[in-house]
């Protein structure tokens, strides 16, 4: 469903994403893991059509995102890492606008909006301006915005940031159910537990490249780390396992 071929993004001399090839089939929840600055968000934004790749292609359901953006994006729901919404719109108006961007309107959309707001405990805030929402509420609103047009593919960048435990649980269940009904999810996260518990397959991104990818057993096999958990495996691949002298940092 999602296919990246030779995907590359350069900023001058700096290579943020370096020749990534990846295929996420229909009905799979795929996790993208990596340290800060590894190129996850850049990759996600290229998939969503927000950034143009320097090289390579992104296809969604066989449609090239950058050559035929309208067709590809119509199947996609994107949840960014930072929940920027229009401050002077109400939650309901924001969702109506998000649905309209995908050409949807009418009573079915209104019912969908109410349903989503209800699920995310935002029903009481439907007619409030989003400038009064907390960070977590905005996050829930943009998640609803990505779901309002019933996408086939969800690309979600750091979904749990700012969510309370109840909403985080709801989102996990929602994404798993979405996948079980034939949807496709590409998720980037720092939270190892989330990745380990939710993802069918995982790719570890380091310095713009995929260092390893596969199911958890496959990852252990590839890295010759049979007994390791995902966190240790991640640190082993990204060079975070070295002993560090913290004393000097904590000295007063």
């Amino acid at each position: 469903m999602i296919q990246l071929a030779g995907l590359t993004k350069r900023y001058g001399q700096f290579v943020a994403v370096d020749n990534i090839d990846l295929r996420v089939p229909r009905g799979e929840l795929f996790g993208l893991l990596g340290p800060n600055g590894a190129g996850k968000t850049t990759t996600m934004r290229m998939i969503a059509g927000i950034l143009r790749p320097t090289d390579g292609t992104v296809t969604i359901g066989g449609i090239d995102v950058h050559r035929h953006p309208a067709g590809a994006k119509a199947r996609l729901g994107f949840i960014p890492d930072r929940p920027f919404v229009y401050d002077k719109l109400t939650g309901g108006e924001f969702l109506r606008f998000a649905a309209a961007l995908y050409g949807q309107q009418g009573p079915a959309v209104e019912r969908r909006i109410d349903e989503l707001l209800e699920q995310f405990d935002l029903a009481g805030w439907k007619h409030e301006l989003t400038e009064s929402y907390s960070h977590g509420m905005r996050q829930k609103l943009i998640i609803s915005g990505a779901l309002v047009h019933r996408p086939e593919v969800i690309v979600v960048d750091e979904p749990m940031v700012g969510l309370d435990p109840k909403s985080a649980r709801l989102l996990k269940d929602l994404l798993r159910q979405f996948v079980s009904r034939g949807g496709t999810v590409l998720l980037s996260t720092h939270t190892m537990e989330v990745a380990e518990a939710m993802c069918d397959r995982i790719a570890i991104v380091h310095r713009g490249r995929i260092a390893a990818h596969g199911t958890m057993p496959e990852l252990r096999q590839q890295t010759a780390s049979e007994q390791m958990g995902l966190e240790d495996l991640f640190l082993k691949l990204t060079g975070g396992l070295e002993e560090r002298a913290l004393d000097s940092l904590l000295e007063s």
Partner: protein
Amino acid sequence: MTGTLRQPSLVTVLTPKWRGALVRLRQERSGSRAKLLLLLVAGTSFWAAIFGIAFRVLRYIRDVPEIGNLLAAKVLGVILLAFLSILLLSNIITALSTFFLARDLDLLVAAPIGCFRFYLAKLSETVVHSSWMVALLALPILTAYGIVYRGGALFPLLAVAAFVPFLVLPAVVGTVFTVLLVNVFPARRTRELLGLVALGGVAILVVLFRLIRPEELARPEGFRNFVDYLAVLRTPTGPWLPSEWTAAMIMNWLLHIADPWPPTRLWTGAGLALVAGAWVHRELFLDGFSKAQEGAERRVRRPLRGPLERLLRWLPPQKREFILKDLRLFFRDNTQWSQLILLGVLLMIYIFNIKTLPIHSGERIPFGLVTIIAFLNLGLSGFVLAAVAARFIFPSISLEGRQMWLLRSSPLDLNALLWSKYWIGTGPLLILALAITILTNWLLHVSPFMMAVGLGTVVPFTLAVGAMALSFGVLYPQFSTENAAQIPTSFGGIVYMMSSLSVLAIIIMIEAIPVTQQLQAWRQGETVGLTLDLMVVAAAVLVICAVATILPLRLAAKRLEQMEW
């Protein structure tokens, strides 16, 4: 914790600002050559035009026997008074952003920076942001004064010495006013309230300016006798205003008059104001800053559904909701819609001035005067339209800013986005253009021919000016601004104004000759038909406007496509 805490220096506190400015400058330089060339041409022609006008007017004034020098001083005083009012307004708007809404405030307030240093850093930022445009505008005018009056090699230094305190004083007043206001109202509300306060202030200033009637200074015959006229010239416009002290300091140098008072007043005033500003800041800033975090609005006062939605029902949902969204954001943001009041006030004054022109007072009006006034009216209408577009259309892409992820990740076509923005802004602008042209030409009792010229010019010019405002907004976006009111006064806003006024000047110059010929013929009783000259000029105007509409929009569409968020 051991040792004494060392305060970061003022330069350190300001490092992110000046380094950021340097990076932006470098990015501008490494940008496309066409953009750089456009900037260079527009900047040079605008600067040269102001210098040329100032130089010619000053040379004429200087040679007026007896009163030339007095008149030159008076003109400088009036110009600086206008600058002072712009600076006051601009400083209030800017200080609200720099002191209470900026994103670096959490970091700076949490850091161990002394109160005075913090104040100086933020004041410097405010002065630079709010005054660079005025300083740029003053440069050709002061250069003209220096050359006409042979100010000598040291004149630039003196001009700087006179101008620095002139810029600092309104900045301090602006910061004090803002901190007081924020202590009464939370900053987010203040920003909205400020719109109205500032508008009130501007309206009063404009009315005052009308009451002073500076044009009467150019008509000495309107005074009872020469002594009265001299008395008006000698009396300062406002003896306690820094604009008067600055004008006096500059003119004294140019006329070789030794008077220590103007520089003393200026520098002492600036020093005292700085101390007072720092004291008010120390006493009130933290309370205000704390309040500034609390002022979000919750309930919607104007839901804007129903009739408007029904009116737009024929549009596809994407376009309809886009227009509704833009209208909602505009009318719910008081800093946006309140500008309409200012626009209304300015238009009323403009129309009132046209009405009070003494061209229908019984005497037979000289033919040349009618032509000049009709063209001046066309030029002024064009200027008003360009300024309105700068305020309302130029910021429209910048205001999408950080929400662009939603638009870019959706199937919304970027061309559709651009065209929606274009018509949302240009539609009302076109209505305004037609209203101004028809009303003022009707008040001027112009011939049907001149009415046709006016309408035939203003319609394509409005379409062009809307496209230029939108496109320059795309080419020079301000995505990270904290205050929408600052967007039109950004660098890109000024480039847009210079470019649109250059287009206007070209159109008027092209039209002047054949229209004058036509009017001449009409006055001599000859039959006026559609001559070849006129058709060529009409075609040229249409082509210029079409190029000024299509080219910027194409550039903008291309830029929008390449833009990354």
